[in-house]
């Protein structure tokens, strides 16, 4: 499961806007030997907070796209008939609807359709202030293949660890830099919302999932579906209730569900406007509020005890 001793931790929520990125960034700040990956590839945000000091861009090949050459096309309409994605209309291909299956290209009797690889987005290999690696991506608007891009950045992150350990570089040792924490090696994956394609790609090979939820009926509903998904993959997990004092009875529902499903409660974070302030200032919450930092560190230590066991 782990790569070169690195444990892969994925932060998920089901529902969006529960605080995944803020909490991921906070936990990452407690560790020195880490790689951070933002897997929310169609709405990446973590780079805005981490502000990498350098980044190298890579192209992501999203798949092939078809195009009709209207000079050769005899307008027989066969391509439109076979296309199941409603991508062909009036002998033109709508690129946003094209799945890249190539059916039209193969079926065309006049070979009037081309089928060529297209770039689906970019991903960025970055270095942070503390010399650790950070990966994020930008899927081009409206593209499919978000799961494929997630797999690709995760692969790059793992490869970077392998390269790094080959060079046996001058990695700083955790206990020197940050005496508050016990050292460990982590790949911290900030996951996308939902339970679909990119989430499935984000959780593959994860050692542990941290589920960040909020005490709202939507939060609970979405959490339950996510738990079910993670159980089918047999991934161990723990729950953090963010904005925990927003609704105490719903918070109780979450705890009951956790108990019923035998999922540890890693911690509760009360509603606090400092979180939004930190976001607006583009800062990590641990730089802004000392008491929140202490609470988060405690939650992270507890999380680690579950990860390691």
């Amino acid at each position, binding site marked *: 499961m782990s790569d070169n001793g690195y444990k892969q931790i994925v932060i998920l929520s089901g*529902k*969006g806007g529960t605080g995944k990125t803020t909490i991921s960034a906070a936990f990452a700040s407690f560790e020195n030997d880490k790689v951070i990956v933002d897997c929310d590839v*169609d709405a990446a945000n973590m780079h805005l907070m981490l502000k990498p000091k350098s980044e190298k861009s890579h192209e992501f090949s999203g798949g092939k796209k078809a195009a009709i050459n209207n000079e050769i096309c005899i307008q027989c309409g066969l391509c439109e008939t076979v296309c*199941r994605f409603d991508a062909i209309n009036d002998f033109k291909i709508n690129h946003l609807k094209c799945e890249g*299956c190539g*059916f039209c290209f193969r079926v065309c009797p006049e070979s009037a359709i081309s089928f060529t690889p297209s770039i689906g987005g970019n991903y960025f290999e970055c270095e942070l202030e503390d010399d650790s690696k950070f990966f994020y991506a930008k899927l081009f*608007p409206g593209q499919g293949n978000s799961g494929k891009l997630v797999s690709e950045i995760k692969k790059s992150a793992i490869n970077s660890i392998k390269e790094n350990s080959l060079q046996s570089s001058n990695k700083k040792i955790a206990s020197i830099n940050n005496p508050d924490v016990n050292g460990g090696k982590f790949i911290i994956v900030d996951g996308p919302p939902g339970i679909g394609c990119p989430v499935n790609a984000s959780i593959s090979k994860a050692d542990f999932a941290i589920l960040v939820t909020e005490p709202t*009926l939507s939060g609970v509903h979405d959490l339950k579906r996510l738990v079910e998904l993670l159980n089918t993959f047999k991934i161990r997990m723990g729950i953090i209730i963010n*904005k925990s004092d927003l609704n105490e009875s719903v918070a109780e529902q979450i705890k009951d569900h956790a108990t019923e499903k035998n999922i540890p409660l890693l911690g509760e974070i009360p*509603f606090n406007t400092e979180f939004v302030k930190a976001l607006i200032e583009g800062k990590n919450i641990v730089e802004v509020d000392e008491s929140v930092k202490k609470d988060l560190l405690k939650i992270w230590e507890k999380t680690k005890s579950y990860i390691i066991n």
Partner: protein
Amino acid sequence: MKEVILSIASGKGGTGKTTIAASLASIIPNSAYIDCDVEEPNGHLLLKPKINTEEFVSKLLPKIDPYKCTVCGKCVEVCEFNALINLKFEITLIDEMCHGCGACTYFCPGKAITEIEKPIGVIRKGLTEHGILFIDGLLNIGEVAAAPLIKAVKRKIAGSKNGQAGYFSKGEISNRDKTSKQNEISISSIKSTDDISQQYLFEKTYVIDSPPGTSCSMVEAVSDSDYCILVTESTPFGLNDLKLAMEVLKTIDIPFGVVINKYDASYIEMEKYLEETKTDLLMKIPFDRKYAVAYSKGILPIVLYPELKNEFLGLFDTIKEKLMMVENV
């Protein structure tokens, strides 16, 4: 009189799409609420509809008849998604990789492939206490393909428009009935919003709640809408994802405006950006803990707070005005 499709989207999750979509559906006369966030649909928690039909949605997967298959490998060759694997003595399918394009079935020289249906989710249909038509899609857990289910949900709009019970078959085009666009009243002079509300009543307004993000699922949800409301929040994350969502809407040519939720005056960059790009700011909803508390209980804040309801009535007037401007161009 016409039918209008209004979509509510955002790049970032948790900005308030569902609350805004459900609130609009509640105040707009003769409306329908369509939840296209099929991975995590939440609208039912706020609107509490009485569901009266549930319908399973399937995708097509190839099934290879081992007696007819000669393992020639043609199907493997035409599959762009590597869903078929040639094991030398047989061909095997990896379900999750299959996009259901049908190329393998078509090109199999021995006619050894037929297609079977695999359930991907369910479409629920019902009515709320106040008579709002409610439709949502619920993706099966473990299923990766949200977009085909969203497409099926949206076909229900076409279905109800044509007065059908929502029957659809593969290959049917999901576009809305284009003839409805021809029966519009064109009003050349607009004096005030009051005039608009009186003269310009929609026969039916479909409010689509889109999934977050900017990928294929979001495009599937918002495509074909007459107008899109992008919901954002006063943070750099909100702004960054708003920019991405705006790019999508510009690409697919859908007019849009922005609602800033959890508005925080100290974050000036948001409004600065909207001004610079000449983007319509439709409404600002101040951050208020009491709204969040109402939402947490599954109560629409507009039900408890009349001042907010008035804001939404104003928003609807603004949107009507925008829709007319779109038509008169």
